[in-house]
């Protein structure tokens, strides 16, 4: 392939990327932002997949088999937690105008400049190998494309600077990073163009990898089954397909998974795209499933390509990291090779651009700016203006960072595989995890704690990973690495304190995390937090409880003019004027008002605006410089916050009270209705009782008077009248007794004797009690009782009364000499069913339910028929109800009426009372 084509293509590609970014920025300016889209957001997160994924995964798979998957398992697991953890981080970052991961740490621990600087330092040192890795991958792919199959890649370290392709790649990337990252003069804007370009790159690298995967798996070989089959046939390759089963194997699986979980959250470039560039928290919902899917797709062909490469090239002749390029080249498919080359280039440039911009923001905000602000009267600031200065600074920093990566590449990258270099960086950024996660969920985490944790963790990382990586290629003496410094064995970097059965990454992660977490927790427990720390800790941990407007720290002792001048210096006159227009009360905007006191809201807004430009720690220093007087104490801030939340709470309480009142009112209304109803029922009951009592009384009195006034009455008539008096008196007595019974039953079973009874014995007793009645009317009683007992729970006397009422009812409505009255008792499911059937006229259908009402008499019963009190069946129903049972009547055709009582079997589910 001609060299000029290989050189010109990346230029054209970067030009295309820049055009995309430019167009996206233009669209954003006209209000049609492309980044307010969950798919663009997700694709931009895929900047996680770098050249390391693109080339290195195949390399690792060729060495270690399936263990390359851990790097993608971690993010997939983490994606499940995104809605909980990342959303909180995004909310915090938005409220506090956080610009980078170092800023996040600094802001959480009392806007500490020291912590911000330290985190920045760790990030730069930690990410440098990662950038080196991208340079290595790009230059290696370039070499492969250029020289394959004749030469092996030339060792970069041996060529001169000018002849080294990697150097030119680094320069190219630095220029484009500057174009993407600092094109806008205003440093606070989101880098929308960059995000869209990165999303585009994610599509290119995915398509390129899928294309080569498809080519190798299905065109070069006959599908994955073919490849695996051939591997199985070779003794020495078989173990690649197995999950390693040694102890350290599992340990390193776990370690790598944890590492990549931390990486997806805390890599500066991931923080940039997932947190800083997030425009809508809801995009996380899509990203949480789409991003793991992306990872799955980009990994699906890794193993087939690795195995195919090993089969194809045998061993040793081609570096497995280059299989993806070498396979299409070896087959003469140059077009595909070029596409793969571009895919790898995409992966590398995406990472370098975003990572470098993220690092440059951190370095300028957390390292350089604080130093510059200390020298406030530097002539250069006066000459170019702070905002321009920030831009120039960032450009210089970008170049510096890329060159640092290049330097590391020149020093050591040739001796390490891609994955190993990447993992060194992963362990470095994992050091951020304890300070950030504990800081987000534990108010007690303190600045000294975070500082200790970061320093210890970073120191262990330096000692156990960074130093050996420099010693390996001979830049440091080898002896201390193998035998420990000064021959002290338990200080050997790869086997600290004798822990020598782990691989270096697992080993370093274990010790650095132990030191880091231990440092944060122990020192936090032992130290007191400053006011500022306590405020920030509360605001971070309780971020979902408060709105942005709540966070006020300054007692306003600054003048409006001062605030305006400060804002104009950093964010421009336009935005300064905007802020003043929003927060200064009308009438106070006049120029002569600039010496008046600024409202606290303006001061706080100014601090937030500055945070977005120069980081939270610097912003605080700047605001402090114009505010005369103290910042609020922790108690002061909490008081303001509490006042707000108290007001909210109070209004919520009021609402709740009024809802409760409404509910109580409607309950009262319902109760009142019910009472009225009950009152009416009682009234009717009293009226009915009075009616029923007066009726027999009427006859008694009438005949009494007749008998008294007619002493000469004939004997038979006199006797007839006396009998009426006696019968009516009996009726009266019965009625009174039943009213009393009913009222007793109505009052519930307070005085009842609840026992387990045999219902057939109850029926027997009731039959005995009514036998007189039956023989008087010459009606036969037919008892059909089961052999076994029918246990029910209840009061014996009440149940007997129930059966007596039914029996006397039945006999009353059966013509004398007719019959029989049948009583059937049986068990139906968990119920005991008692059925009393007479051979009377039956009950009219429309009366079947109403006959159980009190004093209900069937209207068309013939005159002269025996009459009851009208209470018998009401009493039956009440007794059945109180025994958790039921009673109803039905007409059994020719046979007359049946009254069916169902009572729950004792011990059954229907019994409420034990």
């Amino acid at each position, binding site marked *: 392939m001609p060299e000029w084509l290989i050189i010109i293509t990346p230029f054209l590609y970067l030009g295309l990327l820049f055009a995309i970014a430019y167009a996206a920025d233009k669209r954003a300016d006209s209000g049609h932002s492309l980044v307010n889209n969950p798919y663009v957001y997700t694709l931009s997160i895929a900047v996680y997949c770098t050249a390391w994924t693109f080339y290195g995964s195949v390399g690792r798979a060729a060495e270690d088999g399936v263990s390359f998957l851990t790097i993608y398992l971690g993010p997939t697991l983490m994606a499940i937690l995104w809605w909980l953890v990342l959303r909180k981080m995004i909310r915090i970052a938005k409220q506090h105008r956080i610009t980078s991961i170092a800023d996040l740490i600094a802001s959480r621990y009392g806007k500490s400049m020291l912590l911000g600087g330290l985190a920045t330092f760790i990030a730069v040192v930690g990410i440098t190998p990662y950038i080196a890795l991208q340079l290595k991958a790009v230059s290696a792919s370039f070499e492969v494309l250029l020289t394959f199959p004749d030469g092996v890649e030339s060792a970069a370290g041996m060529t001169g600077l000018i002849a080294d392709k990697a150097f030119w790649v680094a320069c190219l990337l630095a220029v484009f990073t500057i174009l993407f990252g600092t094109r806008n003069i205003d440093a606070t804007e989101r880098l929308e163009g960059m995000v869209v370009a990165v999303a585009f790159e994610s599509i290119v690298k995915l398509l390129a990898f899928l294309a080569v995967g498809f080519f190798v798996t299905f065109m070069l070989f006959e599908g994955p089954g073919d490849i695996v089959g051939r591997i199985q046939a070779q003794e020495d390759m078989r173990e690649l397909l197995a999950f390693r089963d040694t102890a350290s194997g599992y340990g390193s699986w776990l370690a790598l998974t944890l590492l990549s979980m931390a990486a997806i959250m805390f890599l500066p470039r991931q923080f940039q795209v997932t947190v800083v560039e997030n425009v809508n928290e809801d995009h996380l919902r899509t990203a949480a499933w789409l991003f793991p899917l992306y990872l799955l797709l980009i990994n699906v062909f890794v193993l087939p390509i690795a195995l195919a490469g090993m089969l194809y090239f045998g061993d040793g002749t081609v570096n497995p990291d280059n299989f993806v390029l070498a396979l299409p080249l070896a087959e003469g498919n140059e077009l595909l090779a070029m596409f793969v080359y571009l895919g790898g280039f995409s992966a590398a440039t995406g990472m370098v651009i975003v990572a470098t911009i993220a690092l440059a923001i951190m370095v300028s905000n957390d390292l350089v700016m604080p130093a510059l602000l200390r020298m406030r009267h530097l002539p250069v600031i006066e000459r170019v203006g702070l905002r321009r200065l920030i831009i120039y600074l960032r450009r210089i920093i970008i170049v510096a960072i890329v060159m640092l990566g290049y330097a590391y590449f020149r020093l050591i990258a040739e001796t390490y595989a891609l994955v190993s270099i990447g993992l060194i960086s992963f362990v470095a950024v994992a050091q951020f995890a304890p300070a950030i996660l504990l800081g987000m969920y534990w108010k007690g985490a303190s600045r000294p704690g975070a500082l200790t944790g970061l320093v210890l963790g970073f120191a262990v990382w330096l000692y156990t990973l960074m130093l050996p990586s420099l010693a390996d290629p001979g830049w440091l003496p080898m002896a201390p690495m193998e035998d420990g410094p000064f021959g002290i064995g338990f200080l050997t970097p790869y086997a600290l304190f004798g822990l020598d059965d782990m691989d270096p990454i697992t080993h370093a992660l274990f010790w650095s995390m132990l030191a880091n977490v231990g440092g944060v927790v122990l020192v936090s427990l032992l130290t007191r937090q400053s006011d500022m720390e306590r405020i920030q800790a509360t605001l971070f941990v309780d971020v979902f409880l408060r709105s942005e407007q709540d966070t006020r720290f300054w007692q306003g002792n600054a003048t409006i003019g001062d605030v305006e001048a400060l804002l104009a210096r950093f964010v421009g006159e336009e935005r300064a004027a905007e802020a003043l227009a929003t927060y200064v009360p009308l009438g106070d905007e006049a120029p002569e008002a600039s010496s008046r006191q600024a409202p606290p809201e303006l001061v706080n807004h100014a601090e937030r605006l500055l945070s977005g430009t120069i980081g939270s720690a610097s912003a605080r220093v700047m605001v402090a410089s114009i505010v005369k007087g103290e910042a609020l104490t922790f108690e002061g801030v909490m008081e303001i916050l509490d006042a707000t939340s108290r007001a909210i709470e109070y209004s919520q309480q009021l609402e709740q009270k009024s809802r409760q009142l409404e509910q109580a009112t409607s309950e009262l209304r319902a109760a009142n209705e019910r009472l009225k109803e009950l009152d009416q029922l009682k009234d009717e009951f009293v009226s009915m009782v009075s*009616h029923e009592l007066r*009726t027999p009384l*009427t006859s008694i009195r*009438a005949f009494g008077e*007749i008998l008294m*006034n007619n002493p000469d009455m004939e004997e038979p008539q006199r006797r007839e009248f006396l009998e*009426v008096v006696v019968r009516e008196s009996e009726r009266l007595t019965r009625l009174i007794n039943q009213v009393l019974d009913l009222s007793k039953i109505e009052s519930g079973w307070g005085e009842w004797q609840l026992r387990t009874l045999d219902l057939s014995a109850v029926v027997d007793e009731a039959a005995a009690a009514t036998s007189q009645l039956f023989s008087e009317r010459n009606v036969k009683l037919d008892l059909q009782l089961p052999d076994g007992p029918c246990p029910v729970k209840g009061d014996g006397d009440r149940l007997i009364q129930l059966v007596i009422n039914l029996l006397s009812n039945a006999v009353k409505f059966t013509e004398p000499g007719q019959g029989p009255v049948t009583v059937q008792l049986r068990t139906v499911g968990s119920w005991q069913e008692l059925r009393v059937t007479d051979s009377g006229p039956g009950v009219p259908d429309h009366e079947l339910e109403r006959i159980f009402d009190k004093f209900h008499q069937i*209207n*068309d019963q013939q*005159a002269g028929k025996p009459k009851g009190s009208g209470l018998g069946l009401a009493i039956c129903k009440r007794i059945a109800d109180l025994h958790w049972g039921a009673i109803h009547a039905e007409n059994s055709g020719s046979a007359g009426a049946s009254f069916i009582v169902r009572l729950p079997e004792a011990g059954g589910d229907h019994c409420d009372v034990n």
Partner: protein
Amino acid sequence: MPKRILIVDDEPNIVLSLEFLMKKNGYDVETATDGEQALTAVDRQRPDLVLLDVMMPRKDGYQVCQTLRENADYANMRIVMLTAKGRDVEREKGLSLGADDYITKPFSTQDVVDKVGELLGDRS
């Protein structure tokens, strides 16, 4: 010619006592045990006075009273309501429906005889 009295009540013993009383005082007596029988009896032969119970099956005393009063032929027929429900409401209702008098159960036999005599215009 003796005056005719119709006694309407669903309680046979009350009918029996009233029948005895009225006959003893020289009236012709007819009886009915519910509202419908009462109306039939009135149509068959118009009585001079009806002793009408309120609580009865099929048609209660109020309905019977109302039906009777709607018929102009029966305009000068006397109606005395009998009721065991002693509330003022019932009394008012009966009188407003056109009853001439109202007797609460249990009644004094002398009262009944006096009221009937008064309404029929003879002092016996």
